[in-house]
């Protein structure tokens, strides 16, 4: 994609990655972009760089606007290599440029890159004058790394928000007004669920902090720039940070010989009949990225696992490990499954759900080999009661 002037003398010079489908385990079904921005003034600043290997495109985009030698500052809002990976390549062209980062950012960049970079450490309240453009810095630790910071341009009412408000969404348009809003919000939700869900308290604090800023444009490090629809993403973040839930029950399971599958179906049908929104998600056909996106606004998660070699099925264990790290709040958990001779998986799943912060609802249900009528009755009852509870809870 070509460079584009997004505001007077402010350019998008990043890279649109149409092909990436696995971003450190996150399934990026629509690709992504690594957004770098160039501010041309008496002094020239580059805001972030791009993923390793995409530096040629970055430098070409910069060179279409100015001579890269003129870059005075490289602002590193976030240390992660998809934004810092090609800073060295820019420094090769502009060796005098100062790398501006938070204190943690400097530490991280020094660990990642051996070069003897000229750093300027900034913190909340610090600013840099480029000429007409004033850059103000706001530390946003753990949104989503310790080094993270925002760069704000008060005169332009423009916020460079690094990964916050981002989306893994490769597009030819650079603005929210140029894409399908439903797809954009779905990708923003997937991004939040997988990258930011566990940091809800920090998101709420940051949103409160941001209320004091006049913001008309939000430029994230991935995906499109928020302009007309900025209030939509800000209010969506507020709702996600508070874990606002729908009366939605997820039945997430794997199965070896259809027994746990039968239990899942019976529980799901009963919950559906009782009026809940239900999604039945088998682990061998659903990726973790989409599963935790469903978790974000679900009221309950019912997990089914057969016992395999005295343990949960690895697919179930992987999902629960991922879920544990994302620390969802206010959700109910249910565990069920079948076993052959010695069980264990259902109890392990229940323990994992509790460790993940879910409140267990009802008794766990286990059965040997095949669910008999009594087991299926229990599954039906649990599905019905769970549905009644989530409907009550989300009213």
């Amino acid at each position, binding site marked *: 994609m070509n460079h584009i002037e997004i505001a007077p003398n402010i350019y998008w010079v990043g890279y649109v990655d149409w092909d990436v489908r696995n971003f450190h385990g996150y399934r990026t079904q629509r690709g992504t972009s690594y957004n770098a921005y160039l501010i041309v003034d008496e002094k020239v600043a580059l805001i972030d760089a791009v993923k390793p290997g995409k530096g040629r495109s970055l430098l070409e985009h910069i060179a279409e606007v100015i001579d890269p030698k003129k870059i005075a500052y490289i602002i590193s809002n976030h240390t992660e290599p998809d934004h810092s990976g090609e800073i060295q390549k820019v420094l090769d062209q502009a060796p005098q440029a100062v790398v501006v980062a938070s204190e*943690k950012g400097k530490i991280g960049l020094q660990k990642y890159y051996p070069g003897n970079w000229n750093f300027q450490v900034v913190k909340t309240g610090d600013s840099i004058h480029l000429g007409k453009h004033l850059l103000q810095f706001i530390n946003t*630790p*753990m949104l989503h790394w*310790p080094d993270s910071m925002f760069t704000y341009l008060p005169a332009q009412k423009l916020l460079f928000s690094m990964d916050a408000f981002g989306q893994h969404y490769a597009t030819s348009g650079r603005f929210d007004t140029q894409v399908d809003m439903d797809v954009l919000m779905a990708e923003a939700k997937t991004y939040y669920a997988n990258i930011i869900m566990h940091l809800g308290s920090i998101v709420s604090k940051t949103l409160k902090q941001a209320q004091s800023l006049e913001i008309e444009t939000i430029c994230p490090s991935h995906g499109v720039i928020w302009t007309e629809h900025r209030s939509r993403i800000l209010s969506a973040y507020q709702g996600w940070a508070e874990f606002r839930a729908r009366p939605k029950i997820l039945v997430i399971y794997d199965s070896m010989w259809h027994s746990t599958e039968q239990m899942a179906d019976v529980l799901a049908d009963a919950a559906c009949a009782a009026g809940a929104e239900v999604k039945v998600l088998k682990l061998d056909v659903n990726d973790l990225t989409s599963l935790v996106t469903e978790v974000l606004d679900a009221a309950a998660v019912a997990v089914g696992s057969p016992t395999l070699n005295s343990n949960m099925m690895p697919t179930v264990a992987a999902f629960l490990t991922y879920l544990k790290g994302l*620390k969802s709040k206010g959700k109910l958990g249910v565990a069920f499954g079948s076993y052959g001779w010695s069980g264990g998986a259902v109890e392990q799943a229940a323990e994992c759900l509790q460790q993940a912060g879910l409140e267990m609802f009802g008794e766990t249900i286990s059965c040997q080999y095949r669910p008999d009528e009594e087991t299926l009755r229990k599954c039906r009852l649990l599905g019905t009661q769970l549905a009644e509870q989530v409907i009550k809870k989300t009213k």
Partner: protein
Amino acid sequence: MGKYRCLLCGYIYDPKAGDPDNGVEPGTPFSELPDDWTCPECGAGKDEFEAV
């Protein structure tokens, strides 16, 4: 004197060790950390910590 874990990044505050880099003497209980003390790893406030 109990240890406390940062809920955001996992850092553990050990009162025996304190946080000398940030002026907290070894032997300082979590409850006696200054109100403006923040997690040395990620900057989270004291309210983001839980007892281990």
